[in-house]
């Protein structure tokens, strides 16, 4: 990667029936950014991520990755190649892990390498083991998702995303479905990714964590970006009343330290 990759999202609009969820989002993400997305429930944080990798088709919007520009609102067959390309360059970590139930942890990580990237089984296994090692899950390589705790499943899911070498990792509330005592191990893994310089968009309610790990933070309300700045700016000196209001409700204006 000689040049710095940039992701430019333009004019992203999404409605569910008559309910406007995203109301014209313009967002530029630089390589190495860890972008924390915060905001009240139902303001389109998850929808933003789901539109970026086309799990939802927005009414309008495009994304520019390096040279290529992809129309996100085009769900036609002719656009399928672009969509597949886009999905290969972005990785998604789901709230509910969504590991393939009938595959072992190892097979879960290998799956995309084999079917999408057309790698040989041996090569895929090697990469998969490396990624499982990174998230500390090698010992459980032969376990099925139902044998694993939520935290372990999420770590495997992260390994599955990392194995595909995405340019942009999307994390959709990765710790929201976890028991409180399991949140730490997943956050630790995400922190490690951030330190390794992965470009990420992190939607989360773990405000303290975002403050610690994110390089940039946006506050989303009613489908619009209300506040955009460094986590320190957003959390301690928000410019907008709505942001202050939100943080006050979360009683986060006085900052508790998150301990991992």
């Amino acid at each position, binding site marked *: 990667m000689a040049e710095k990759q940039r992701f430019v999202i333009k004019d992203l609009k999404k409605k569910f029936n008559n309910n406007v969820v995203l109301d014209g989002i313009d967002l530029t993400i630089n390589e190495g950014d860890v972008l924390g997305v915060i905001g009240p429930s139902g303001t389109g944080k998850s929808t933003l991520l789901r539109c970026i990798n086309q*799990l939802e088709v927005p009414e309008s919007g495009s994304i520019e990755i390096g040279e290529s520009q992809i129309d996100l609102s085009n769900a036609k067959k002719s656009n399928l190649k672009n969509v597949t390309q886009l999905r290969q360059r*972005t*990785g*998604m970590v*789901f709230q509910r892990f969504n590991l*393939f139930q009938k595959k072992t942890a190892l097979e879960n990580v290998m*799956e995309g390498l084999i079917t999408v990237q057309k790698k040989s089984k041996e090569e895929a296994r090697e990469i998969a083991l490396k990624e499982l090692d990174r998230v500390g899950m090698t010992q459980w*390589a032969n376990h*099925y998702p139902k*044998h694993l705790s939520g935290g372990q499943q999420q770590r495997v899911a992260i390994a599955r995303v990392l194995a595909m070498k995405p340019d942009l990792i999307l994390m959709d509330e990765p710790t929201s479905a976890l028991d409180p005592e399991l949140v730490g191990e997943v956050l630790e893994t995400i922190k490690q990714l951030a330190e390794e310089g992965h470009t990420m968009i992190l939607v989360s309610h773990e405000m303290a964590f975002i403050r610690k790990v994110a390089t940039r933070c946006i506050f989303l309300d009613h489908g619009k970006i209300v506040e955009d700045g460094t986590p320190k700016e957003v959390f301690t000196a928000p410019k907008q009343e709505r942001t202050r209001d939100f943080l006050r409700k979360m009683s986060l204006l006085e900052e508790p330290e998150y301990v991992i």
Partner: protein
Amino acid sequence: MTGKIFDFKLVFTQIPDLLKYLPITMELAIASTVFGMLLGLLIAIIKIKKVKVLDKLATFYVSLVRGTPVLVQLYIAYFGVPMLLKYINQQTGSDLKVAAIPGFVYAVLALGFNQSAFDAEVFRAALLSVDKGQHEAAAAIGMTGWQSLRRIIIPEALSVALPSLGNSFINAIKGTSLAFTCAVVEMTAEGKILSGRNYRYFEVYVSLAIIYWAITILFEKILKFVEKKISIPEQVEQISPEELESLRSPKSKAKAYAANHKRLGGELAWQKNRGLS
């Protein structure tokens, strides 16, 4: 002819004669099941994807087939298809050999169509039972719709569908006893012929009942085994450093494979098998 009311011995001594026709029975059952399942899966996918026009047609087809007795369907196939071919010959001047089609084909078609309607519902329910997150996860790593269906969704749906599909197959085996309507001589038809000779109708049907029952028990056992085989094992041991090493080095592929499949359930079964042999 002996004067016995019930010839107990005959029930067993004529079983070998009947079993000579078991291959035909099984061929009928397997062919119609394969045909019925493939068609059923296709119908299920059409209905789930809500393909225009075709899904309406599929609903109509399922309703029609489920709403008519299989015996009637067999007769319709046996008399209807030749009539259709004759009509086509008449209209187009073609020379389709109606008489050359063996009864076996009609029987397989009719039994297969009959099964497809039931299997379609089984597949539909099973496919819908797969969590939406599985589709999304597959899509998110860049798999195409077909890849995710083949590699992720169908294998998961199959575990759900298997017990019902097994039932469907067992029904198919028993359903073949109606194939005589299409002039196919399978086990039951042969039984009729035998009893026509010695007038021991009751004995022959008892023999047939025993045979069908035994086959059903056999397939129930096989089904149980397969179900267990494709289900996720209850327990898996943590991977040891040695196994990990063998997994890492692609050269010792066989070893790696063994280690990869070293699941507690599988291993126990394997040891047991070895003990038996």
